[in-house]
């Protein structure tokens, strides 16, 4: 797919739009936050607002798709007025997982340019890779901190290309550095992501039924 170097969510043809975006205040950026946990939704909403984002918080992937107009009920015209600049979603949610939501968004010609960031309480290489391959810009390990949210501006201000899936080697290297896999003996240096030694989860994305064998280490790894 040809890249025009413009901000992710804009169409190539619109010169005037591009100018708007150059002048656009980051403060006006609108984030759609998706999390089934009430506590987490409250926290992420506050984190985003205090970082000068506009926020819409929803409790499921389905509601996120409805908001984005992907459920077939809204017309394309309605959708464009919603102007979502970034989507941040929890990985493990009942019903549609964050991963499935990510796939739906990246699979939609209308929405694929919107940067998507995934949050998860588990710092597992396989999960991170899966998300990056599917086009996520970043993977944040919960609990989410102010510094994590401040970084989100990078995905909007620099006009960086949306992750073209599988090509995000730099990001992957960076995230692997702090995540763990079964082959790594120790958790890595204190970054916000390294919390516990975790074994790779081979199982399906988000099923609590993927109960792991007793040989895994102390902390829980089976998906949430």
């Amino acid at each position: 797919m040809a890249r025009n170097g413009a901000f992710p969510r804009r169409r190539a043809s619109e010169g005037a739009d591009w100018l708007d975006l150059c002048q656009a205040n980051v403060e006006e950026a609108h984030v759609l936050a998706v999390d089934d946990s009430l506590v987490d939704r409250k926290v992420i909403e506050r984190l985003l607002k205090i970082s000068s984002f506009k926020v819409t918080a929803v409790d499921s992937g389905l509601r996120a798709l409805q908001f984005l107009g992907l459920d077939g009920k809204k017309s394309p015209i309605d959708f464009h007025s919603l102007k979502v600049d970034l989507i941040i979603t929890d990985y493990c949610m009942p019903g549609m997982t964050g991963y499935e939501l990510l796939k739906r968004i990246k699979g939609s010609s209308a929405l694929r340019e919107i940067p998507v960031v995934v949050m998860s309480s588990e710092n597992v290489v396989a999960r991170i890779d899966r998300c990056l391959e599917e086009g996520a810009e970043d993977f944040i390990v919960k609990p989410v901190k102010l510094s994590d949210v401040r970084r989100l501006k990078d995905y909007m201000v620099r006009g960086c290309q949306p992750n073209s899936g599988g090509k995000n080697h730099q990001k992957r290297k960076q995230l692997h550095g702090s995540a763990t896999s079964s082959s790594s003996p120790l958790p890595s240096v204190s970054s916000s992501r390294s919390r516990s030694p975790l074994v790779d989860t081979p199982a399906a994305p988000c099923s609590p039924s993927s109960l792991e064998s007793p040989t895994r280490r102390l902390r829980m790894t089976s998906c949430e």
Partner: protein
Amino acid sequence: MDVVQLKRQLIAFTELLFGEGFLDEQFNQLQQLQDENNPNFVAEVATLFFEDSERILNELANNLDKQSVDFKKVDAHVHQLKGSSSSIGAQRVQRVCIIFRNFCNERNVEGCLKCLQQLKHEYALVKSKLEALFSLEQQILAAGGSPSI
């Protein structure tokens, strides 16, 4: 008690809570999100946490009371509680959740029941500590001071 004394109490109490592992760094993060425009933010999050936790603890008791325990369900509930306790910085609750999930994984009912008891205990503790903390803050406000350390 005057504002200065109350503030000293607050600082000491807060240090104790962190020292004993009831709260961790994430609680600090939440406090940073509180300001004049959102003066009750932390207490509001705590209230949601209390409601959520109580609901989950009830569900856990129900699920573990069955002839044939659905460990998938139990694990899902514990996972939820692990998440919310982590988000508020309730470290001891979070740690019990981790152990609890291990027992779910091993399909160990007795282990799960023990963890449930421990969870109830830790939850009750952190709830009372947080309520005491918020009460101290309110006293400081009432005495004309500002609770922010």
